[in-house]
């Protein structure tokens, strides 16, 4: 048999204070999709950065076509045929599809001028070769959907004659339809003999598209399996090092008096007359497509964009929520959707992030009690088992799941009565996810009212006592736990006419 396209042997990488990779090996053959699996912080990102030349390994070998290779820069890797498509797409929104594909290596006419005709025909040939017929070479990238932009990235990689394509969570931001089309493209690339390294948290996807899988845990190699010979239970166990009995540890707790009663909230343009009630001890799931107005509703409740009309009652008392400060003082906490931008001050330490929403309680006459602040952060790190070398570490250097625990923890320090969670487990690995779900159960048992926005239907169905469905800025359906099936909720999200009535 031929040498594998890419063969990684005993890779080692150490950052100051952290062993990011120890003895990691895996290989990719032509025409194979090899998945990398592991919790956040397991070392997947470091591994692909080493393979794509961003980091230099401290030990071990990388073999391309059986020959040892050393990449000192991403350009080196590109020349060797390794291309990487990151989660954040690196395209120029003002340029066309063809310009983006050939940026930096456009075909030349005489005197160094760019041969625009060749750029266009080559781009069209690339599009045709992957049978992409709904994308034109002349379209401006800024006007394209995420799925389309990702295709442009793939084409750019192919224009470099990439033979090894690394895809980092390519489906994280895609709709169902885009995922299906991405898989079509991946299969076509396989057919051409391209080797693909595929990273995803979604196990069901891996069973659909991958041939083999390698699992990492805490920077170390755990094992490789053929997808045909394994199952999700085994993979999850390999990933977290223990069995996770129940993905959604829903505990039924007695439900008390209403905490939040909102009447006819309006905030232009995405909140168009929303009424809802959340009771003490209750977890209400808020389902809906991206753009249906769920996060906007949460931000109305939290005072970021105060309601223009309507009434909010908290524990029976009419209140005005016209700023986040007002919301916090009334006992409302909001864990936002985008933790990098809205949730964390990434350059600040874990310590200072933990205390940020509770500074008032930690200070006297405006002076921060720094000993109390440290005690609070250390208790938080322990309670939420945040993996960090110390509370003085910059929060931005932690893995996604650990960052999310800090955002959650900083709000729980205020002992809120109403907790609004916006995608609480997005981009979080299986282990941290289960911990966050267990925590939600504990909070509900303590009488906290929880409103949870989630795009992951199993999570909504698994965790909620009641499910509300939002579409185009309005609540269009409500289901109690017994009636909330994925068909019913999914149908209401999409706007199937039959689901307009309230099922509860």
């Amino acid at each position, binding site marked *: 048999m031929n040498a594998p396209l890419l063969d990684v042997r005993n890779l080692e990488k150490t950052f100051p204070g952290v062993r990011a990779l120890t003895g990691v090996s895996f290989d990719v053959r032509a025409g194979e999709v090899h998945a990398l699996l592991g919790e956040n912080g397991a070392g997947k990102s470091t591994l692909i950065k080493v393979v794509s030349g961003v980091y230099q390994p401290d030990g071990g070998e990388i073999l391309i076509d059986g020959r040892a290779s050393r990449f000192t820069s991403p350009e080196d890797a590109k020349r060797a045929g390794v291309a990487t498509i990151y989660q954040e797409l690196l395209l120029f929104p003002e340029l066309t599809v063809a310009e983006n594909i050939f940026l930096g290596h456009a075909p030349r006419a005489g005197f160094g001028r760019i041969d625009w005709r060749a750029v266009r025909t080559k781009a069209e040939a690339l599009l045709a070769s992957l049978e992409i017929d709904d994308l034109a070479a002349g379209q401006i990238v800024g006007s394209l959907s995420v799925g389309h932009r990702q295709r442009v990235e793939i084409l750019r990689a192919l224009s470099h004659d990439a033979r090894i394509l690394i895809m980092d969570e390519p489906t994280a931001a895609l709709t169902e339809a885009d995922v299906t089309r991405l898989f079509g493209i991946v299969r076509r690339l396989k057919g051409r003999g391209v080797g693909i390294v595929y990273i995803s948290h979604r196990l069901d996807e891996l069973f659909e598209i991958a041939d083999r899988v390698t699992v990492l845990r805490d920077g170390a190699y755990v094992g490789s399996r053929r997808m045909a010979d394994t199952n999700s239970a085994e993979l999850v166990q390999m990933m977290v090092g223990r069995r996770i009995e129940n993905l959604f540890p829903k505990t039924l707790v007695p439900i008390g008096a209403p905490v939040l009663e909102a009447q006819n909230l309006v905030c232009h343009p995405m909140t168009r007359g929303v009424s809802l009630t959340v009771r003490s001890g209750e977890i209400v799931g808020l389902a809906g497509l991206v753009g249906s107005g769920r996060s906007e509703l949460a931000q109305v409740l*939290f005072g970021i964009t105060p309601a223009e009309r309507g009434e909010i009652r908290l524990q029976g008392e009419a209140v005005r929520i016209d*700023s986040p400060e007002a919301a916090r003082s009334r006992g409302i906490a*909001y864990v936002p959707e985008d933790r990098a931008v809205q*949730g964390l001050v990434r350059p600040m330490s874990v310590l*200072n992030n933990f205390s940020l*929403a509770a*500074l008032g309680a930690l200070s006297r006459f405006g002076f921060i009690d720094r000993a109390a602040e440290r005690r609070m952060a250390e208790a938080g790190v322990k309670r939420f088992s945040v993996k960090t070398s110390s509370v003085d570490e910059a929060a931005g250097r932690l893995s996604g799941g650990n960052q999310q625990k800090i955002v959650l923890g900083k709000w729980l320090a205020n002992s809120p009565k109403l907790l609004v969670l916006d995608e609480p487990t997005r981009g979080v690995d299986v282990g941290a996810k289960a911990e966050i779900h267990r925590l939600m159960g504990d909070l509900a048992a303590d009488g906290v009212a929880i409103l949870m926005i989630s795009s992951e239907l199993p999570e909504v169905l698994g965790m909620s006592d009641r499910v509300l469905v939002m579409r185009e800025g309005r609540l269009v359906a409500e289901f109690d736990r017994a009636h909330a099936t994925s068909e019913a909720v999914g149908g209401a999200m999409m706007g199937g006419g039959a689901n307009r009535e309230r099922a509860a």
Partner: protein
Amino acid sequence: MSAAAETALLRAPWWLKRHETLLAIILAVALVGLGAFNDRFLTLDNLLNQGRLMTEIGLIALPMTFVIITGGIDLSVGAIVGLSAVMLGYAWKTFAFPLPLAIVFALFVGGLAGFVNGFVITRVKVPPLIMTIATLALYRGLAEGVSQAHSVRGYPEAFYVLGQGDVLGAPTQLLILIVLIVVAGVALDRTTFGRALYAIGSNETAARFSALAVDRAKLVVYTLSGLASGLAAVVLVSRVTTTRMDMGMGYELDVIAAVVLGGTSIFGGAGTIWGTVIGLVMIQLLKNGLALTGVKGDATIVVIGAALIVSVLIASSLQRRRE
């Protein structure tokens, strides 16, 4: 840098790697060097006199540190100094206010000018750079209009204690500056207000989502900036015994240079009062030391520019190493 030096640097204790410490070391070396060239430089008299001369810039540099930590900038401070100085003279001479009331009026005008900056920046969301460029012109224009290019002189002798006199053997205004340095340093390092400034400068959205009073904090720092400029104007008038409408011209650059040289990130989120103080002292003593050594004015500016660039290079290379 050689590999050995690099490891040595990595192993050095944290306080040695701080920008402020490095700057203090450079300052000490420069002091000794300049002192060796000139025996008038390292005398108590000369140093105290330099303290007197740097006070106006220093007073404004304290709130400017706050402003820059929030990721903002205030270019109108020099113009506010001019406006407040003119208002002091106008209130005393034309309105015939008693001098203490005229001083309060000048401080009020400075604070109000800063408040207007902050109000428009937070409410109308005009970028601070644009807003304060606009008010730089506006306030200077007001100063010219009110003063009609007339200068005011002949203040009572007692007023000059502030700008020319000594208390406890040190220049009066220097003592005021030292007290305010301590107040500003403690406020930035120990209070919720200071913490909010760092959070705003690092990630304003997250600060807002953490229920920090972002707009109020910004309004306060721009108002303080105006107030400090007003105070600097009063000290300056007392020191030079005259009110002129072009007072404070170009101060904004000296102030920003001291703050940035002191290690405050122009992108916001990082910086200390102690750094600003070292930056301030460094610029003043370099100017003075070079002048005493016989270096011409133009060359002094070149040296200060070079010092700024070197310090920023050191800071950014340290930053990279830490990451």
